[in-house]
């Protein structure tokens, strides 16, 4: 292969990869999720959505036996009931943000297949523990985990 052909081939591959990424980026990622209001405005049963909102306090139901999880996502204006099977990520909790992937069903609830916990840009020490040095926190966590492991 000549130098020029190699160059064109390599360049073409990079360009194609970039074009694909930008294309899929523009069509999917610009709006990573829809809000409950947007979903309620025109819900299409069977269509795949990412739905994002706050987990309404008091709406969370969890059956450890069957791994059935249900909760309501709200954006302050509209709310959507969500059902999920499986354990959520650690950061998932009432009053916090979450994004769920799944479909809208004819029965009037959102069937979720994946839960993503949304995190805020706030970083602070556990309440009241501001004075405790970081290494103490770390050692305590490691000790607790070792104790959990033994049990």
């Amino acid at each position: 292969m000549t130098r020029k052909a190699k160059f064109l081939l390599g360049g073409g591959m990079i360009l194609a990869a970039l074009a694909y990424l930008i294309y899929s980026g523009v069509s999917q990622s610009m709006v990573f999720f829809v809000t409950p209001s947007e979903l309620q405005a025109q819900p299409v049963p069977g269509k795949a959505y990412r739905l994002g909102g706050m987990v309404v306090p008091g709406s969370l139901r969890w059956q450890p036996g069957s791994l059935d999880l249900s909760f309501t996502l709200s954006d302050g204006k509209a709310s959507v009931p969500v059902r999920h099977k499986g354990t959520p990520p650690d950061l998932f909790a009432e009053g916090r943000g979450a994004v769920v992937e799944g479909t809208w069903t004819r029965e009037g609830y959102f069937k979720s297949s994946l839960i993503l916990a949304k995190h805020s840009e706030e970083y602070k020490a556990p309440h009241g523990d501001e004075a405790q040095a970081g290494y103490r926190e770390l050692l305590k966590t490691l000790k607790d985990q070792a104790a959990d492991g033994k049990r």
Partner: protein
Amino acid sequence: MTRWLGWLAALALVAGLLMGFGYAPKDAVQGNVQRIMYIHVPSILTAYLAFALVLVGSLGFLFSRRTAWDRLAHAAGEIGVIFTGLTLVSGSIWGKPTWGTWWTWDARLTSTAILFLIYVGYLLLRSMVEDREQGARYAAVVGLVGAVNIPIVHFSVLWWRTLHQPPTLLTPERATISPSIASALLVNWVAFTLLFAYFLSKRLSLRRLEEELHA
């Protein structure tokens, strides 16, 4: 000079480790996982700096055609790719326990992946063109265009609806971070910048040797 930079960087990195693990408290919500931030955030800020230098070097080379500018762009580009890779890996390790996924195509993650690919392509382009002068010219054009992506990556979380949280540093909003966590982050940022300066000075002298070899 290079030697001193190396020792300074090593010292700052040790200080950064002690600050990140020993001084800063764990985060109230995330726990100890949040400490990944001390690598993740300095990595991408260093990558921004590296690619900004690629832009400077590219512009300088296109205007003056002096090899020194091309040398700067080349060295900074290589190191920037390393730090962008480190950002992607550390972010992924953080994302699994926090979000619940290793990867997702939101605007921040996608634009960072594109940033990585642009500069991998930039380095590939350099190695593929055998005529050095010509390769430097092509690369300079990519280095110029690629820089457009830096602000896109940084502001993606403000411009579009993403899973990734908005920035805590370099943001028009008021900072929402405890002073102890912020100071640990700052020390690590300084350490990474020193490490970058050390790598850069080392790579520049290597490139000079390469040029002598090819001359």
